C-alpha cells in the first residue's frame, strides 16, 4: 500500500516534471530563419540610420535600446537599462544600465557609449533618423560608468515612448570604423560582413555572449522579395519562414496551410483626413464623418483586421473620451445635408451647393487595400449624395500630395507611439506630417499642454477635450484601429511583435 502510494507520488511528480520540461525541450537550437523583406535594398547595417519599420526589425536584432514598451503589460520594460528614475519636475531622466553587457566587438556597455550614441543621432550637422525622437532632450550627462541622465528642454512625459527606437552602438565602431567594417551593437545577432549583399540579402549570426542568453537560432537571413505574391509563394514553398506585412485577405488560406499569423496593433489607425482649407463647412465634414461605415471598410478592404474607430483616443485607455464619437449613421449624414439645404436637384445622385455639384478630390495610394478602401468610401459618400473623384499615385508622391494640401479628402493610415494612446500627430502643427492644412490654435494649445503636463488626470482632461473638438468640428472621419499581420511559416516559433510591427526577442526565436 505504502509502495503504491509512493509510486503514485513518483509518477505524478514525473508527469509534472515532464510537463514543465516539454515546452523547454521543444525549443530547438540551431538553424537559419529566413525573413522575406519587402524592399529593394536590404536594411542598412547601421541601426541608427534605419528609416522604416521593416528595417527597424533588423536594427532590433543587431542592437538594443535602453527600454521597450510591452504590449501585454502596457508598460515600459527594461532592456539595457535595468531601471530609471524621473525627477519630480519631469525634467531629468536617470537610467541605470545593465552591468556586464558586451558589444559584438567585446567592448563593455557604459554610460559613455549611450551618451555618444545619442549625440551621434541628434548631431545638428548630420541628424540621423531618430533625431526627432531626441529633440526634447537638452543635455546628456554621464553620472558614472553605468548611470546616464538626460535633461529635458521642457516637461515631456511621453519621452519613454521615444526610446525604444533609439539603439545603442559601440562608439568606436562609428567614430573610427576599420575599412569594410560595420557598426557594432549589443543585440542577439551580428552582421556577417561577407554575406551583406545590399541588393539581395543579409545574414546575421548569433552572438553567443548576448546578455539575455545565447540565441536559439544560428543565423537569420533577410532576403529581399519586393513582391508580396512572390513572398507568399516562397512561404508556401518553405524557402521563406516569415513574411512581413501580409494581407488580411490572405489569412484564411494561409492559416489553412498551417501558417501562423502574428496580428499586432495598438495606436495604428486609419482616418479619412480632410483638408480644412478646402472643405471649410463643418456640416459637409460632419456628413462625411457619419457616412463612413467603419466596419464595412474593415471587412471589405482589410479582411476583418481591425476595430472600428469612433474617436481618436484608443479604446479602454486612460484618455479615451467615451462621451463623444462618430459611428456610421447615413441617415444623420443625409439629415445634416438636407438641413444645410444641399439637395440633389438634377436627380443624378449628387447634391449641389450653390448650384454646383459636390465633387471632392480624393487622391489615393497605389496599393490594393488602400485603393479598395478609397473606392468603398467613394461609394459610401455617394450614397448620401457627396460626389468625389479619385486619382492614384505611388506611395511617396501620394503622401506628399496630402502633406502639401493637394487634396480634399484622403484615406490615411499611420501609427502614433504607444503612449499617449491617441491618434493625434497629423493635427500637430509642428509636425512634418501635419496634413489638415489649417491653423487650429486652440487644438494646438491643447496638444502642447497635454504633452507637457505631468499629472495624468489633467492630461486626460486635455486629451478628452481634444477628442471632443475633433469630433464636433469633424476635423476627420474616424476610420479604424487597424491591425496588421506578419505571417510565420509552420516551422518558425517564438516571435513577439511590438505594436509598431517591430519583432523583438530574436534570441528566443527558434525553428522546429
Amino acid at each position, binding site marked *: 500500500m505504502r509502495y503504491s502510494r509512493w509510486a503514485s507520488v513518483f509518477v505524478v511528480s514525473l508527469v509534472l516534471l515532464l510537463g514543465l520540461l516539454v515546452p523547454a525541450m521543444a525549443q530547438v537550437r540551431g538553424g537559419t530563419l529566413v525573413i522575406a523583406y519587402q524592399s529593394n535594398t536590404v536594411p542598412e547595417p547601421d541601426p541608427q540610420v534605419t528609416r522604416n519599420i521593416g528595417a527597424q526589425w533588423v536594427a532590433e536584432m543587431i542592437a538594443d535600446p535602453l527600454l521597450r514598451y510591452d504590449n501585454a503589460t502596457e508598460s515600459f520594460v527594461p532592456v539595457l537599462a535595468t531601471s530609471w528614475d524621473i525627477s519630480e519636475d519631469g525634467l531629468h531622466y536617470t537610467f541605470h544600465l545593465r552591468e556586464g553587457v558586451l558589444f559584438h566587438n567585446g567592448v563593455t556597455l557604459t554610460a559613455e557609449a549611450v551618451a555618444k550614441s545619442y549625440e551621434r543621432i541628434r548631431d545638428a550637422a548630420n541628424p540621423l533618423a531618430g533625431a526627432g525622437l531626441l529633440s526634447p532632450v537638452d543635455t546628456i550627462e554621464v553620472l558614472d560608468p553605468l548611470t546616464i541622465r538626460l535633461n529635458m528642454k521642457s516637461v515631456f512625459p511621453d519621452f519613454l515612448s521615444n526610446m525604444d527606437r533609439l539603439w545603442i552602438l559601440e562608439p568606436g565602431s562609428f567614430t573610427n570604423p576599420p575599412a569594410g567594417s560595420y557598426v557594432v551593437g549589443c543585440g542577439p545577432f551580428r552582421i556577417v560582413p561577407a554575406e551583406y549583399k545590399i541588393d539581395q540579402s543579409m545574414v546575421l549570426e548569433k552572438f553567443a555572449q548576448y546578455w539575455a542568453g545565447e540565441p536559439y537560432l544560428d543565423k537569420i537571413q533577410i532576403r529581399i522579395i519586393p513582391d508580396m505574391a512572390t513572398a507568399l509563394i516562397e512561404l508556401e514553398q518553405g524557402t521563406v519562414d516569415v513574411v512581413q506585412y501580409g494581407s488580411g485577405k490572405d489569412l484564411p488560406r494561409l492559416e489553412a496551410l498551417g501558417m501562423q499569423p502574428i496580428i499586432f496593433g495598438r495606436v495604428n489607425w486609419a482616418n479619412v483626413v480632410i483638408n480644412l482649407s478646402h472643405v471649410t463647412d463643418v456640416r459637409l465634414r460632419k456628413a462625411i464623418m457619419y457616412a463612413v461605415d467603419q466596419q464595412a471598410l474593415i471587412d471589405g478592404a482589410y479582411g476583418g483586421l481591425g476595430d472600428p474607430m469612433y474617436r481618436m483616443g484608443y479604446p479602454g485607455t486612460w484618455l479615451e473620451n467615451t462621451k463623444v464619437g462618430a459611428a456610421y449613421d447615413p441617415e444623420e449624414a443625409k439629415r445634416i445635408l438636407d438641413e444645410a439645404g444641399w439637395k440633389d436637384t438634377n436627380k443624378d445622385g449628387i447634391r449641389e451647393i450653390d448650384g454646383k455639384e459636390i465633387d471632392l478630390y480624393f487622391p489615393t495610394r497605389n496599393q490594393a487595400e488602400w485603393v479598395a478602401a478609397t473606392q468603398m468610401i467613394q461609394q459610401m459618400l455617394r450614397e448620401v449624395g457627396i460626389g468625389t473623384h479619385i486619382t492614384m499615385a505611388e506611395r511617396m508622391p501620394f503622401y506628399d500630395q496630402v502633406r*502639401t494640401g493637394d487634396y480634399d479628402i484622403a484615406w490615411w493610415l499611420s501609427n502614433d507611439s504607444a503612449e499617449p494612446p491617441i491618434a493625434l500627430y497629423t493635427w500637430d502643427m509642428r509636425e512634418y506630417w501635419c496634413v489638415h492644412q489649417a491653423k487650429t490654435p486652440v487644438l494646438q494649445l491643447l496638444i502642447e499642454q497635454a504633452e507637457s503636463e505631468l499629472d495624468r488626470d489633467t492630461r486626460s482632461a486635455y486629451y478628452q477635450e481634444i477628442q471632443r473638438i475633433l469630433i464636433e468640428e469633424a476635423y476627420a472621419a474616424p476610420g479604424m484601429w487597424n491591425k496588421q499581420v506578419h505571417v510565420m511559416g509552420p516551422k518558425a516559433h517564438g516571435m513577439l511583435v511590438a505594436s509598431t510591427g517591430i519583432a523583438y526577442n530574436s534570441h528566443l526565436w527558434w525553428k522546429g
Partner: protein
Amino acid sequence: MWGYIVRRLLTGILVLFGVVTIVFFSLQLAPGDPISMLIPAEAGGGANPEIVAALKAKYGLDRPVVVQYLIYLKNLARLDLGRSISTDRPVGEALLARYPATLELTVCGLLVAVLIALPVGIISAVRQNSVIDNISRVLALATTSIPSFWLGLLLMLLFSLQLRWLPASGRAGALWSWDGLKHIIMPAVTLGAMATGILMRLVRSAMLEVLRADYLNTARAKGLRERTVIYRHALRNALIPVITVLGLQVGTLLGGTVVIETVFAWPGIGRYVIWGIMAKDFPVVQGAVLALTLGFVIVNILVDVIYCAVDPRVTYS
C-alpha cells in the same frame, strides 16, 4: 568604319545628355519631396522643421533647381552620380553592383526570344497557313499580350509551388552553375516572352518575302537542296531587318526588367529604378536611367555596325 563609329558615339553622348536633362527636370516637376522618404509618414511623427531643414541642406535640396542641375552635371563629368538620399550610399557603386544582374537577365531573355522566334518563324513561313503557322500566330499573340508580371506569377505557381522544380525568386551565383541557371530560367523566359511574339512574326514575314524572291528560284533551279536554299540563301537575307529590330528589342527588354526584377526579386537596375521612383530618390532615378540608356545606346551602335557588315548595300557614311 572608325569614323562612323566615332560619329555614332558622339550622337550617343548627345542622347545621354538629353536624357539626363529631361529626367532631372521631370523629376523636379513630379509631386513630392525626397526628404519625406527620410521621415516616413507611417512612423508616427517626431520630425520638426529644424530637422527637415538640416536634411535638405545635407543633400543640397535647399538650393535653386538650376544650381542643383549644374552641380549634378559637374559631378557627372567626374563620373560621380551622387549619393542616394534614402540610403546615403554612392549611386555609382549601387549601379555597378546591379548592372551585371540586369545585363545577364537581358541577354538571357533575348536568347530565349531568339531561340523560340527564329525556328518557329522560319517554320511558319516555310509552311504558311499550316497548323504550326496557326499555332505560332496564337503564341505570338499570347506572348505579346500577356502582362509579364502575370506570366511570371503563373510560372512561379507551376514550377516553384506545384512542381517544385525551380526557385521562385532571387539570383544565385554564377550563371554557369546549376543553381545560377535554375534561378534565371523563369525570369529569362518571362522577359523573353515580351520580345518573342514580335520577333517571331518579323522572322515569318521577312522569310515569306525572301522566299518569293527570284534568286531563290534560281537556287532551286540549280538543284540545291531545299534546306540549303532556306538556311543559306533565304535566312541570311531575312535576318537583316530582324537584326535591326533585335537591337530595338534590347531597349524593350531593358525596360521590361523593371517589372521582371520586382516579381522575381532579381537584384538588378530595373528594381533599383522602381524603388528610386517610389522613394523620389533623385540621384537613384537619374543614375539608373542613365545606365539603362547607356546600355541601349551601346547596343544600337553595335547593331548599326553589324547591320553594315551584314548588308553590303549599307555603307559607313
